[in-house]
């Protein structure tokens, strides 16, 4: 921590005497990939808290419908006895999803860890375009402003769901415009970022760092960047069209005339289903954008703490690629009952079944990595194993839903909610948590508290299952999602106690995150000092100082081997850093600096 600030202060010394300008230069408008990564990390964690609060509000309403809601009730609806209106509930889940997806998971994975880790792991001093990198963070701020602003628009915010299906999204309040603008800004930010990542990974690897010597994290981030770069423009185009439908009444997504309460709102000649296709063409790959980097980081952590090479490194890379490739042709499985051509549904079903295959291979390879290892169950390791375990559940329920006839019953019910929360929270967020525990010493030069970390893990793990597992049963029963008050339906009334149990677990899970908060900020000051390589890991970043100075490396890194040479039989040490030379580096691979 203090190491870092001194480093950075020396780095910026002499440029400007004004301390405010110096501060702005080094922390706010910094072009250093590490500072940008941390900026992404902190803003995502703040949004995580906001998104979590929204989730708890949703759970409150489902457990105690229309009762006095804490915080929101007395501050916003005191005259209604603290009872929220139905439209507010729609805002809650819309914003929960939007925030969690576009402001938490995607930025924390590719923004925070992508920025922080890519140059360090491939032995570069910074990103290929540091200033572009800064812009990619600062393009998030208009998006933040739009999202925050949308809360204050009439109707409390956008209420059309994160999928924003027309024609509903064309007739909801003006907050929707801000929502769309916000996502367009996120899109620009992600596009700039992903081009930067791809260029950096392709062109700025340390000598000897062949593509197949890159850690899985870098591979995953690379493929994520490809996914983003190719899928996001489609969403951006669709968002522009929706915006023009709303503002100019063009009607790309509206059929001839929509009558809402007898008032003609929009004219068109368009296709509501077209939006769904364009949206899911991005948003299904987005699902992989939200999980692949976590997969990569988990692979690294598992291998490191099992003190054992990653099982099947190349198949892991190929399966990542396969997931990404197939990810572009499975979007239709979100639309089995949408009225889409029903023969097309079959092809989407087949491709969805296919995508289960590489996911399965990854799971088996992780198990293979653990098998025969020497396991150190540190907090990051526990989170990683938790990731694998939760990903199995999420993946299996995914297969159930990929069958169109079964999907008829469980589409848009809590089964879906359970499924994607297992993948996004159970897997991605656990992976992110593990990664924070793992790379924290590198980021701040201090270790996080292990005991608190383990308590945090076990509580999160238990309550996460308590929260999301029962949702499978609700879904099988047909309990619809996005209902402010499902108990108006006689057939769902007996599910209230189960929902109250889920809500209890959700609140406890939320409370468990406070431990993480204390641990995170406390360790900044009181954490044990970490050396360069506290985990005895192999990859390049652990050879740099903790925290790394501006420019990352105090030596020219040459890479001699892959990142997973743990417990090599020919070596006493159980790790073998990529930079540690045993013989002279392969001269072919290292271009001369002067050529």
């Amino acid at each position, binding site marked *: 921590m203090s190491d870092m600030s001194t480093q950075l202060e020396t780095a910026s010394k002499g440029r400007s005497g004004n301390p405010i300008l110096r501060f702005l230069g080094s922390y706010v408008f910094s072009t250093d990939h590490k500072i940008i990564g941390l900026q992404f990390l902190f803003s995502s964690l703040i949004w995580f808290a906001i998104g979590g609060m929204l989730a708890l509000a949703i759970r409150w309403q489902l457990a105690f*419908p229309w009762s*006095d809601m804490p*915080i*929101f009730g*007395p501050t916003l609806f005191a005259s209604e*006895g603290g009872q929220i*209106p139905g439209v507010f509930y729609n805002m809650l889940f819309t914003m929960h999803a939007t925030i969690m997806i576009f402001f938490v998971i995607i930025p924390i994975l590719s923004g925070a860890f992508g920025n922080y880790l890519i140059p360090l792991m491939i032995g570069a001093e910074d990103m290929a375009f540091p200033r572009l990198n800064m812009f990619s963070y600062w393009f998030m701020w208009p998006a933040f402003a739009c999202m925050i602003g949308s809360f204050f628009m*009439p109707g409390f915010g956008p209420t059309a769901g994160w999928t924003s299906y027309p024609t509903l999204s064309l007739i909801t309040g003006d907050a929707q415009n801000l929502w769309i603008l916000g996502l367009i800004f996120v899109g620009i930010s992600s596009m700039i970022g992903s081009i930067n990542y791809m260029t950096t990974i392709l062109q700025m690897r340390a000598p000897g760092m062949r593509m197949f010597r890159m850690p899985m994290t870098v591979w995953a981030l690379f493929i994520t960047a490809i996914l983003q770069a190719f899928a996001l423009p489609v969403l951006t185009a669709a968002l522009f069209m929706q915006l023009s439908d709303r503002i100019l009444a063009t009607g790309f997504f509206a059929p001839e005339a929509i009558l809402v*309460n*007898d008032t003609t709102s929009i004219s068109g000649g368009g296709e509501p289903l077209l939006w769904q296709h364009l949206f899911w063409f991005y948003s299904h790959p987005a699902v992989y954008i939200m999980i692949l980097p976590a997969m990569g980081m988990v692979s690294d952590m598992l291998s490191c703490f099992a003190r054992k090479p990653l099982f099947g490194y190349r198949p892991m890379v190929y399966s990542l690629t396969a997931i990404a490739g197939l990810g572009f042709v499975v979007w239709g499985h979100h639309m089995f009952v949408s009225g889409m051509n029903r023969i097309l549904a079959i092809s989407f079903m087949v491709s969805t079944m296919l995508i289960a295959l590489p996911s399965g291979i990854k799971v088996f390879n992780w198990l293979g990595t653990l098998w025969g290892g020497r396991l150190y169950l540190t907090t990051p390791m526990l989170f990683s194993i938790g990731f694998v375990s939760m990903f199995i559940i999420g993946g299996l329920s995914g297969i159930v839903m990929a069958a169109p006839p079964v999907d008829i019953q469980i589409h848009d019910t809590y089964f879906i909610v359970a499924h994607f929360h297992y993948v996004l929270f159970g897997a991605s967020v656990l992976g992110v948590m593990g990664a924070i525990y793992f790379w924290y010493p590198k980021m701040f030069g201090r270790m996080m508290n292990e005991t608190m970390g383990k308590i945090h893990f076990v509580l999160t793990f238990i309550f996460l299952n308590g929260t999301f597992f029962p949702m499978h049963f609700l879904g099988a029963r047909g309990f619809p999602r996005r209902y402010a008050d499902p108990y108006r339906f006689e057939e769902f009334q007996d599910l209230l106690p189960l929902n109250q149990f889920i809500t209890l677990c959700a609140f406890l899970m939320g409370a468990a995150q406070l431990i993480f908060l204390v641990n995170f900020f406390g360790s900044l000051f009181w954490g044990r000092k970490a050396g360069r390589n506290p985990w005895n890991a192999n990859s390049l970043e652990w050879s740099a100082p903790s925290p790394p100075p501006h420019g990352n490396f105090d030596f020219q890194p040459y890479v001699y081997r892959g990142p997973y040479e743990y417990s090599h039989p020919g070596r006493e040490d159980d790790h073998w850093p990529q930079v540690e030379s045993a013989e002279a580096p392969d001269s072919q691979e290292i271009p001369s600096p002067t050529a």
Partner: protein
Amino acid sequence: MRHVLLQTSRLLAVILIPAILAGCHSSPEPQFRFNRVALLKQEKTDLSEGETYPADYQQEIGNVLTALYGTPDQPRFPFPLGAEDPGHEVLSLENLERAAGPVRTDKLGRTAGLYRELCSHCHGITGDGFGGTAPSLSPYPRDFRLGKFKFKSTPLRRMPTDEDLDRIIRNGIPGTAMPSFRTLTDEEVDALVDYVKYLTIRGQHERRLIAELGNLDGEPFMNFDLLQENDPQGQQVDEETQAENLEEFQAQMYMVVGEYLGEDILSRWVEPEDEISSVEMAPAAFRLDHPAHSNLILQGKSLFYGKANCVQCHGETGLGDGQTTNFDDWTNDWLKTAGVSYDDPASYNDFLQAGALYPRPIIPRNLRIPVFRGGNLPSDVYRRIANGIEGTPMPSSPTLSNEEIWALVCYVKSLPYENEGLPRDELPVNERVVD
């Protein structure tokens, strides 16, 4: 870095701690909203420009109403004549309690707090049509306080029957945001009907009190101080004065409850069933299979364009585009009476501030869509034509004969399915059949 973090955490603490503290106490008990629009309108009629009634007048009306009607959580009803009061036929306290109050989630069969659960989102806790969702709805939710109901079986300016309210709750109003609550039990619907009537009567009474403000001369409607045993100086009042005070109080109460409420408002709510307008016998040609059926439609058509002059509002096309500048009575109530013009939003800004909804013209029904707000049975349509629709420009039609009305019913019901002149397969643009 440390400095930044400390700053940030302080900032977070400043933001979060009040929020958490605010979240820890629960919301205060909700209160009925005062009808400030009516007061403002009264001020504009009674007083000269810029003058207002003193604030304690509003307080006074609030006190009287709370004393008589209780609060949203604990409703009361002032039966002026005690047990024999005809008001008992209008509504029962038992039903009010079932519908009022916060939603009870402890029990599964939530039979209490129905109004708050189902209705107040749109109609508001006060029944003033100003719930949270109201501004985004078109048409606006009904403001009960005027005591006007559109779709009923009684003629204009009569109160609806319980049956009518019951039907609206169960069927909803097609073409509006009013949903159908078909799955409620009979008791629940009864409770809601009574609660709607309670809110209506309370609102009518409130409007009446506001209208009487000009006659007050600073005297309270009901001086509750008269009931005190001590005078304002804290001295015991002698018995004689107490008796006088009591008498005076009773006189005040007689005026407010007996006259304003009992005679002027409540009496109209008793037995509205007696007023139900009859639906006369239909001609035999009304049957679809009758050979003269198409003639009846033709007759309806010529009436539509001719004698009945439906085209004036519903338009030559029947699309409801004849006139688009009228307002309904709920808007006219303040828009017209206070002499404000619609074209100039600045002129009624004070009304909007007081809680009036932005005025929207009332659009005549598009008759080419098979949506009938007051019900689609022939007898429903018959009543709409014969009785008109309360609170809207739709007039009653005393000049039309029974057969003519039936002919119109016949024509209006056939209009949505009338071929507009294009072959059927070409009709709905962009409509693709999936099978």
